[in-house]
């Protein structure tokens, strides 16, 4: 006979102190293992889906990286161009994280602590890079700073190179990760309300003191979480950087672009070896993410 599962117990949550001897006791829902067949089928479907869609591709990358043995792997990883690409990836990632953290804190403070016209519109504008194809994100910088761009002549006259150069790679990375920190900070700051800040302001505290002493302690985990997400996306960015980099080996190639070049040269082992660096970085990010999420709770 089927017994309906996991039915939640709920003892009169609203009635506190309305009678004598009132006891407050939180009661966990009982975990009945009812209809186990449905449960196990659903878990199996989920596990299979994740296995085929996520885990096996990951294993493929690692297995292929070591496909030609350890020595070949080491050689591919320690290759001059691979290391240069890694350095550029790290530079772009760190820049993006710094810029977007500064932006995220100011913007979240602005939108959560003050009321003004166009607040909602501003929030929507900040989200734009999320819904744009990375290829288009790269394109807009070419149309701005490239030879045909409206700032092209100015840049040429002053001998500044952005497109097909390192600044372009950094700008494109910043663009695609722009809302990441903001989106983690904003809900937390918004939920926190303004009372504490207002109290501090009435006692004469200045803006930076208020932020450092009052606001920041509430958001530090959210900030770290946003930084982690931003890092993950920044170091893996491909489309936008691909458009703007010009694929100059040793100069404007980031690690993901280097992977593409190696792959297109049919140098599969080297491509997967270079990928494995990114996989390891991604794994570290995932672990950090889970630790932070666990700490937040």
């Amino acid at each position: 006979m089927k017994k309906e599962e996991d039915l939640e117990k709920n003892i009169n949550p609203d009635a506190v102190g309305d009678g004598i001897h009132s006891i407050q006791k939180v009661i966990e829902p009982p975990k009945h293992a009812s209809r186990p067949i449905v449960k196990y089928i659903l878990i199996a479907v989920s596990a299979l889906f994740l296995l085929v869609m996520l885990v096996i591709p990951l294993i493929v990358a690692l297995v292929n990286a070591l496909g030609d043995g350890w020595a070949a792997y080491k050689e591919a990883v320690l290759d001059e161009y691979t290391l240069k690409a890694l350095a550029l990836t790290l530079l772009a990632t760190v820049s993006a994280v710094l810029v977007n953290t500064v932006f995220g804190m100011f913007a979240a403070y602005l939108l959560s602590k003050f009321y003004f016209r166009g607040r909602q519109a501003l929030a929507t504008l900040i989200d734009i890079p999320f819904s744009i194809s990375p290829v288009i994100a790269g394109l807009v910088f070419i149309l701005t700073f490239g030879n045909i761009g409206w700032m092209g002549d100015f840049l040429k006259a002053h001998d500044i190179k952005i497109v097909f150069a390192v600044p372009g790679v950094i700008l494109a990375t910043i663009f695609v990760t722009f809302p990441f920190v903001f989106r983690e900070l904003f809900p937390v700051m918004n939920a926190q309300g303004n009372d504490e800040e207002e109290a501090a302001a009435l006692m004469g505290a200045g803006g930076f003191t208020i932020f450092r002493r009052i606001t920041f302690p509430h958001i530090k985990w959210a900030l770290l979480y946003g930084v982690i997400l931003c890092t993950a996306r920044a170091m893996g960015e491909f489309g936008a950087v691909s458009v703007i980099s010009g694929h100059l080996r040793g100069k404007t190639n980031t690690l993901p672009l280097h992977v593409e070049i190696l792959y297109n040269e049919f140098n599969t082992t080297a491509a997967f070896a270079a990928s494995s660096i990114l996989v390891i970085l991604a794994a570290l990010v995932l672990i950090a993410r889970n630790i932070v999420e666990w700490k937040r709770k």
Partner: protein
Amino acid sequence: MEQQIVKVKNKKGVRVIPGFGLSMGVTLAMLGCLVLIPLASIFISASQLKPGEFLDVVTSRQVVSGYAVSLSCAFFAALINAAFGIVLAWVLVRYDFPGKRLMDGLIELPFALPTAVAGISLTYLYSDQGWIGSIFAKIGVDIAYTRIGITIAMVFVGIPFVVRAVQPVLEKLDRQYEEAALMLGANKLYTFFRVILPELFPALLAGFGLAFARGIGEYGSVVFIAGNIPYKTQIAPLLIMTKLEQYKYADATAIALVLLVISFLLMFLINSIQIYMQRFSKA
């Protein structure tokens, strides 16, 4: 996009908290320089195109088929993700089992794994030599370099959007709705489709929309497995890329503009539906 702005109490324009001017200034300056001004370039460039030219580009057979491939594959991928995303969210919220935390952490893998790595791994896996591709090759189904492959890559990048949208809503869902349906004699399946699914629908739609939008714009993980066969597996972002490599900036801009408009319309539509659905939540 699901985030809702709660009205701040202080509406009268009296600002007690300092820092408004500075944070407004920094926010607008950074947003303007890094996002809005570059983005405006695409509209400036597009405005320099003659309407005839523009139409010629975006209605050419190759470009139309590019849009068709991107939109159809992204749509199917988002549908698949909606189905599996609900199952995954359900399993993660409602059941306890060993390895649950690992499963929960794995969902985020497509966010963390660089798209190019995902792209070459998927291609390798689903090519007719690969572990999975070779099985399907035996029954005469090619996956890599077909639209099936593109769809699979889009499923890969889109799955976290749906799971992470549905999961918190399912966690907060009041069990009374289910109990009420069960007391009225409905079985679990009927209860799920008539009672639980409508409750999850706004979140599911948000996740679907994000996965769909991501699929349309996705480049890195799709480009390898797509194989770039004109009229068959050329996706729209790849067309932009190709035009750029040929220094046809005007063509690239035109294609990008249409793609941009499609994305914005999609987001607008989904936002509107969500705002409409919010009316029901007062009860």
